[in-house]
């Protein structure tokens, strides 16, 4: 079992509790449900688990119109009807019109795959209930061909949710659960280090300071998250902004350069500028 332990990767920093939850799910072959603020790497986790354990990844992205059935298979009745009118020979075998969904593909995989069900809360409220048996027994029945599809290897199922809808208890009971909390400064330094290994210590320190300060601004609609911080640092590097500029901005102008990468809506930018203005005025007085 030692080789199949997930310990984070060279591109992904996993905290102890996250590793524990993932490893428990992998060992017991149960789905794991991941929640957390947007931009804390929920979706990426599945990719990294697949990469770390060297497994194929099947991604199923959920939209508000997605039905559970679509993950299993689609029966293209319209195509069959059309073929029948055109006198196509394929029409006699119904199996020709069964299109496999992501879950079926994952079930059919030769090695144990990782199956990502992304943003499950976007779908209809009944959606998770429709998948109970499939995720529990890892099998489903194709009514059209009267065939039982069973997983060759129980996939490692990673499910992400943004908390837009509550998930049913029966569904939750079958999963492990982990809430990715916003990283503290120390973890954040590790994360940045993983993405920008040669970042100057000074710049990183200043950037993190500014970042956490922006996050602390009261009343922001959308607080900047990890992915925004990484984008911002990428921009700072691209523009070759020296660390002194960040410190200067704290004392004098107080608007960090390229702040558009951190604040994503105009009310927030406006609020921020107002606060900076007030702050500057109180200093000059």
């Amino acid at each position, binding site marked *: 079992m030692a080789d199949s332990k997930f310990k984070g990767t060279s591109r992904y920093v996993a905290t102890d509790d996250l590793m*524990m939850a993932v490893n428990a799910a992998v*060992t*017991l072959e149960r789905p794991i449900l991941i*929640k957390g603020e947007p931009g804390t790497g929920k979706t990426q986790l599945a990719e990294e688990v697949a990469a770390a354990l060297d497994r194929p990844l099947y991604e199923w992205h959920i939209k508000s*119109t997605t039905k559970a059935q679509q993950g299993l298979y689609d029966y293209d009745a319209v195509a069959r009807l059309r073929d029948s009118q055109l006198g196509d020979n394929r029409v006699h075998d119904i199996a020709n019109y069964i299109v496999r969904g992501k879950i079926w593909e994952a079930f059919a995989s030769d090695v144990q795959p990782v199956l990502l069900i992304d943003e499950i809360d976007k779908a*209809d409220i009944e959606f998770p209930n429709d998948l109970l048996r499939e995720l529990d027994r890892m099998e489903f029945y194709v009514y059209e061909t009267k065939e039982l599809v069973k997983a060759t290897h129980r996939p490692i199922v990673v499910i992400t949710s943004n908390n*837009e809808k509550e*998930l049913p*208890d029966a569904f939750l009971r*079958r999963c492990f659960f982990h809430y990715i909390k916003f990283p503290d400064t120390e973890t954040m330094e590790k994360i940045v280090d993983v993405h920008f290994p040669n970042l100057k210590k000074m710049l990183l320190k200043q950037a993190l300071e500014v970042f956490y300060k922006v996050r602390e601004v009261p009343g922001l609609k959308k607080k900047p998250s990890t992915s925004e911080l990484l984008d911002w640092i990428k921009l700072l590097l691209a523009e070759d902004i020296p660390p002194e500029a960040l410190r200067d901005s704290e004392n004098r102008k107080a608007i960090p350069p390229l702040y558009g990468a951190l604040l994503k809506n105009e009310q927030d930018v406006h609020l921020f500028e107002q606060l900076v203005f007030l702050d500057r005025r109180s200093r000059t007085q």
Partner: protein
Amino acid sequence: MLIRFFFMLREGGLKPSITELLTLLAALKSGVAGYSVEDFYFLARAALVKDESLYDRFDRIFGAHFRGVEANFRALAGEVPEEWLRRQAELLLSEEERAQIEAMGGFEKLMEALQKRLEEQGERHEGGSKWIGTAGTSPFGAYGYNPEGVRIGQAGSRHRSAVKVWDRREFRNLDDTVELGTRNIKVALRRLRRFAREGAADQLDLDATIDSTARNAGLLDIKMVPERHNAIKVLLCLDIGGSMDDHVRICEELFSAARTEFKHLKHYYFHNFIYESLWKDNRRRHSERVPLSEITHKYGPDYKLVFVGDATMSPYEIVYPGGSVEHWNEEPGAIWIKRLLKAYPKAIWLNPEPRARWDYTPSIKLTRELMEDRMFPLSIGGIDDGIKSLH
């Protein structure tokens, strides 16, 4: 041992099921957790708790249940936990401080004393000047002032002792009995969506397809019907000004979230209590008022009525004619709200004041009676309950 813990969790308001307990036991059996309390804590949390708003409650119960166990651990070990001793190499000492240690008899002596004291000390400790713990002046512990100190248990990723993880209670502000904060409200308001988006359907219009295929001389002609949208209708009445100023932000957020969620949302403002008219625009509240009769006439009884207000005022403002603080009202507010409730049988009152204060404010008690007890706190749990009673 785990069965008692399991029932303690259930008593504490968490609802882990037997399946989940069995999952945890299976995970323990397969050796995922290793043999540290911290590992066990992470594993138990992932297996038993499925909602981050309950993390804090779990932390507290876990702490209460396992604190004693951990002390046993220490007694069994009979000496300083290895993790603590490992820190001796990492003491953050300057030259002068080191000199002071020499004064106490050197490093070895210090560690010896530490070990001895640990044996004497039976339990977790804070403050004080002798025992090991946090925030004291003993040479051992954390956040203290003794320059000869050995830091123990101060937050640092590798060193944190097991209890600290749940002692920190990082998820405290997510507990759903806490009144809403800026982050919490977003989560809570999404619950409104639950009843606004049910029954999404994207279907083949069978009748129209048969009809048009027949007209098309038997050649297939597919007709689709657009997704059925939810037709829920909400009439939102917001208290504005006066004692509500403390709650402006929360109401703003509720309002903006509600606006994007419901296709049929009508909103009106009132001040302190409902009288014969409401208004839509606060800047023109005196010139453009809408009579209540016009509202009940315009919007049918299928609208669901949601009041948001602290209902904190003088009781006269509710029960007496002329009680309004802004104008002379011929009939008391109590009569007007009864009329509204008659027109809209599905109604709730969301109150940003904490529930504990309701019984001490006569006007809230009065309003609650008028609302037939359908008053809910403006918290995650409250909105949830309120929405249930609207169904």
